[in-house]
């Protein structure tokens, strides 16, 4: 049994390692290139998936394992995906956005802060925007 599990598969581990390094460099490059956000997200997650596939297929030897890998990992994967899918309609789509205090009560405060922080000078105390409410 032990012998079967230690069969040599002649994988070019160094080659896989270099592919992973290149992929990591690509991820950092995508961050530095300042593409539109959706493009960057798609690119870096695609690179992450490619890296994950390399690690699983070659370093974890799943490419050379029998069909048991599907039996073992398919239910896990389905259950793992289930949680985000279950949360998404309630949290990801609406997350009480319309009534969140950050959006309603404190919106003016945050805008006033951003305005004073990114403006030329801090506003004089007497010129504090009326939106700066207490009570948060």
């Amino acid at each position: 049994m032990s012998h079967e599990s230690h069969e040599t598969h002649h994988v070019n581990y160094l080659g896989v390692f270099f592919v992973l390094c290149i992929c990591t460099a690509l991820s950092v490059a995508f961050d530095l290139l300042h593409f539109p956000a959706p493009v960057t997200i798609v690119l870096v997650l695609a690179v992450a998936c490619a890296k994950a596939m390399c690690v699983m297929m070659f370093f974890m030897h799943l490419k050379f394992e029998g069909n048991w890998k599907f039996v073992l990992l398919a239910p896990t994967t389905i259950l793992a995906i289930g949680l985000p899918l279950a949360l998404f309609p309630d949290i990801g789509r609406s997350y009480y956005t319309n009534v969140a205090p950050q959006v309603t009560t404190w919106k003016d405060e945050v805008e006033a802060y951003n305005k004073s922080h990114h403006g030329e000078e801090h506003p004089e105390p007497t010129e504090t925007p009326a939106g700066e409410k207490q009570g948060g």
Partner: protein
Amino acid sequence: MSHSPKAPALRMGIPIPNSKLGMWLFLGTEIMFFTAFIGSYIVLRLGSPGWPTDSKDTHINVLFGGVNTFVLIVSSYFVVVAHEAMAQKKYAKARSYLGLTLLLAFVFLGIKALEYKGKIDHDILPGRIPETATQAIAKADRQLEAIVRSRFSEYSAVGVVNANPGDILGLSTEIAGLPKANKPKDIDAGTFKLFQDRAPVDAKLYSEWLNLHQHVVANVSLSVPAVPADYLTARASLKEGEKFPELGIAEVQDYINKLKTNEQFGADVSKGVFELHPIVYGNIFASTYFLMTGFHAIHVIVGMILFAVVLMQKNLDGTWTDFVENSGLYWHFVDLVWIFLFPLLYIVKW
């Protein structure tokens, strides 16, 4: 009853060692464990418009994350080479590569510690981040009060004042009168003189904090006097419908900055009061960041223990091959998790 010598042995189950099957089953649970965190993070982030992504807010350093990704990839490579060496009975080589893997795990944790320190230094911690201007002002007020209480506690510790250590008003009255007070019998003259000399400084700091605190409670601009009697006088002059200007974050920041320049207590204020910097959704960002990277770091430590167990064996032989393979599978999984954490935490901005 004799079996044919060429008949294949009947075997049931999956053709892998039980330990490896156990490791894969464990990794199956680990996939669900981390997917719950990562999935929740994605979902929460999608539902939070204005999630902090600016490195000035989050103190996320892409370079640190990138280097750590590289470190884990190199360590993954070393582990797989170590396992290959074990299979080829080159145990010394396997030991060397496992040693290098352990070293890289230390490097990973060292960089992670630097990242954590950057966040702790700026108070980017769950539950401690002001999300609005009001919360930032209130936090500055609390932090200044903590400095006053800390400095007052030194008087209580040596016994030059009698008020209850928690009674900040009583302490402030006693400290303000300390320069003219008589020395208690059980305090030596040098110590008493020392506290008499610094009493006016601490009384001044207290009055500065009290001034701010009264404005914070009343939500009135610092341009309006805070003494209650003056409020009444000032209020009497207001026309109908008029009200005092409200307290603004910029003027509080200026007020704190001025205190920081004070020669006597400025250093304490600089150390103890952070810049007033509201970060919308900062707390949930910090919670998810520390949850995911924290649990990942714990997994790194567990992996280090596994490698250390192998490295501690005086005679590494073939009986450890399965152990090294399973430890390697675990380590690759740790790498796999980081492969997704790196883009999601360090790069993706939306």
